[in-house]
């Protein structure tokens, strides 16, 4: 037990180091961007009206000072670290002076909601079917499913998502193809709102499940088919152990650990959003925010999203490492 605690402590220090380095890299990456937020705003303000050249110059100076872009980079870095410790990531430059975190929090629930549900669904379906396919290797149906899974896997996600729009929004228009909920309901704890959210999430979630299924299916099938050829399973079969028992206590138990690990990683990795899903289905989320922020030179928002992503992934790895020795007694805590 003491060994485990030392291990956990060491591992926690490593987590802190990873987060620190990760956000520092994110800082320099987002602030070394060649895109100027000031020019983005000037283009918008002056691009469409009779705005004189002198006026543009004066606006440029005002904004540069306002955004603190005339401060040396290292000074901004230490400012950032100081503010990061108290959870403040500074004002967004695209929506000055609204805090970057406020913009992130608007999009975050949608990303987390859609991606958590679809990731877990994908994981469940993929693993159940994959497990069955690995065990019943002669089933034609499961084999056919395997071929389909392998076939779908390399299809670019954009195509799959757009096909869903065409099929269910155009050829057979039964489901909404854009937005997070209908325009005639208001966000509230009402059944109408819940139903509206569900209906709008069906197509985006289905597209994510379809493209994601193959990986889990193939992974689980490979794991299970390896396990069922292990000697202990063969012995158990010969000894007449019931099939359900073999599956549940020999096969699944051994196959589930790596798949759980991968699930945790996948869930940790959802915090950058899925830009293509959001674009195709006009669905709110972090992906659009992130890409727009990069595009407009809003380093503060890029940094805010990146920090959340770094922390989420690093924490997921940390938790996996902590749980592994408990789940799998063969692995020593070291």
């Amino acid at each position, binding site marked *: 037990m003491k060994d485990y605690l030392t291990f956990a402590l060491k591992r926690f220090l490593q987590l802190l180091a990873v987060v620190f380095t990760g956000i520092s890299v994110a800082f320099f990456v987002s602030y070394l961007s060649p895109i*100027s*937020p000031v*020019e*983005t*705003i000037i*283009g918008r*303000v*002056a691009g*469409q*009206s*009779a*705005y*004189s*050249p*002198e*006026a*543009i*110059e*004066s*606006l440029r100076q*005002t904004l540069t000072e*306002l955004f603190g872009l005339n401060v040396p980079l290292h000074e901004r870095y230490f400012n950032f670290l100081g503010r990061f410790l108290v959870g403040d990531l500074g004002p*967004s*430059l*695209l*929506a*000055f*002076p*609204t805090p970057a975190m406020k*913009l992130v929090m*608007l999009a975050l629930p*949608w990303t987390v909601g859609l991606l958590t549900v679809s990731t877990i669904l994908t994981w469940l379906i993929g693993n159940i079917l994959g497990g*069955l396919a690995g065990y*019943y290797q002669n*089933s*034609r*149906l*499961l084999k056919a499913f395997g071929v389909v899974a392998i076939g779908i896997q390399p299809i670019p996600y954009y195509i799959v998502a*757009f096909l869903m*729009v065409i099929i269910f*929004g*155009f050829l057979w228009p039964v*489901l909404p*193809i*854009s*937005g*997070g909920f*209908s*325009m*005639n*309901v208001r*966000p509230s704890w009402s059944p*109408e709102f819940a*139903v*509206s959210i569900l209906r709008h999430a069906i197509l985006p979630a289905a597209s994510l499940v379809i493209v994601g299924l193959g990986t889990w299916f193939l992974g689980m099938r490979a794991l299970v088919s390896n396990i069922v050829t292990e000697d202990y399973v063969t012995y158990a079969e010969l000894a007449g152990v019931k099939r359900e028992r073999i599956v549940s206590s020999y096969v699944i138990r051994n196959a589930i650990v790596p798949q759980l690990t991968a699930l945790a990683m996948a869930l940790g990795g959802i915090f950058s959003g899925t830009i293509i899903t959001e*674009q195709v289905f*006009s669905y*709110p989320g972090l992906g*659009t925010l992130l890409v*727009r922020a990069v595009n407009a030179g809003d380093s503060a928002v890029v940094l805010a999203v990146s920090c959340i992503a770094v922390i989420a992934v690093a924490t997921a790895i940390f938790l996996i490492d902590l749980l592994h020795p408990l789940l799998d007694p063969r692995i020593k805590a070291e």
Partner: protein
Amino acid sequence: MRKLKTLLASALVSLAFGGTAIAQEEEAAAPPLNEFPREETLIINNPEPPAINPGMFNMWVAGNGAAWSNGLHQLALDTLWFIDPDAGLEGALYNQLAKEPWQYNDDFTEMTVHLREGILWSDGEEFTADDVVFTVETQMKTPGMVWSAPFSEYVESVEAVDDYTVHFTLKEPNSRFHSNFSVRWNAAWIMPEHIFSKVEDVTAYDFNPPVGLGPYTLHSFDPNGYWYIWEKREDWDKTALAQWGEPGPKYVIYRSIPSTDSRLIEMVNGNLDMIHDLTPEGMFSLIKQSPTSRGWFPGFPYAHPDPTLPMVIFNHQNEKFQDKRVRWALALMLDARAISMASYRGAATLSAIAIPPTGTHPRDYHAPLQDWLTDYELDTGTRKIKPYDPTIGLQVADMVRPQFGDEVPTDEEAIRTAFGYGWWKQDIEAATELLEAAGFTKQGNQWMMPDGQPFAFTLNTFQEGVINRMGTMIAQQWSQQGIQVTAEADPEIYRSTLPLGQYEAATAWSIETWGGDPDLSFFLDSWHSDYVAEPGERQPHRNWQRWKNPQLDEIIEEVRKTEFTDPRNLELGHEFVKLMVDEMPVIPVMSFNVFSAYDTRYWTGFPTAEEDPYANIVTNWANSKYILTQLKPAKQ
């Protein structure tokens, strides 16, 4: 084994059926759109991506993330005048909050505005001269607001003479000061003094809900910024827009739909009445699939020509383009028909002169100058040629007729409006003579510059859309003639490439006009040589080519001293056009045609190119609000 198969199969089947059953049930459970009856609601596509800061409506602050074209500047806000990019309802100049046009004193150092009386803000407060004064003074004393810089630069003082008269004293003579309050796409909107004067920090205020002078108020909006719903004010008749009629729709919804293909699907499904833009191909497809949908033109080329002029811009601080014979040679190497086909599938409105062929410009410029262009003589160094071909538009129409048939106009006048009045005829021989006269030599199939280096350069172009296609095609045509030109797709073209002069040549535009008025000050003033930056410095909008010319300066200086409505402006405009043809500092190609579409299933009365071009159907332009006054429900 068999058992498992049946089990799985039945599970799949029941899942599929269950799924549809659930879907149907949900269909029944979801409340119908009774809040916004379709026949009372106009649904418009807002081309902006979803608002970055959805609850922010204070659009006077630069860079606070407030969305503009979500209905806010079209329906809720208002200002003194509008200058329509098209013909307008009763002429292109609208006296909006002002009762009559601007009045300057003789030396343009003072401007007086008389305001309409009895106009109410959406909260019932009366609109007065104090609001205008407050708008100007607040922005002058608060840097970082959208109009802070121009107001501080021009305005000495502003005062309310009485409740309905505003008097501006300017720092120096400025005959175009009113353009700051004249909406083309947008302009300085008037702030509600009674709201903002109570706000401690104007720059941090979110102005939610907005209080405006337009006939609509905010009903509700998506917390994620995808849609904004506006409701007609009960006292809509107390707004300036009421002058032109009662707006038809009770509700107007502005929706952001990032994927252009989804816009098409939504219109076919009846969920969208106006689309800001489609791809050319998407437009052709929409016309085929939805009989009630149409574009600006009733048939080919459908698209609305914006008063902007896509062109080849040469960097005049680059040695390669110093000689006008070289620029002319490059122009004569181009085949406008192929450029039109490649960029717009033939749906381009070509223009040989430096004026967009849109709005009232064809009447003012293209038609009157047609003869001058046809007779225009160019000295190639060996002989004189007449480079202009007035039939190019007709030729393009003939090229697209096999594919589009009856959709292509046959009337010559209609063809000129839609496809342009003509362009330079591709003349490789003349181009060769010009280049040789300029000291260039051809070795094999490669042109060499006078210094013996191969003539090669990069052409920066847009990352996507028709301008990208145009740039790729132009680069290709030059390459075929022995000049190594590479097209570079450049996402930063307007943000850094053009301003910093980090390019050799580019396809973009440095000419934008009012559209509905022959006055050229909108872009021309910024072309004065005083503003041309040193190499490496940042060039302010819009003289991206950094071209200096004494004759040009003379024209600009005279425009500055000529009143906006003075017919002399048109003569000066003609002088400018002729100078541009002589010097060829940029190669004008065509107008920027936007494939906007609208659907007449629920609403009728939209503007049309052929009969009633009273407003721009491009939905993010603030003047699109005049359309609402003309709309009638399709089914009574």
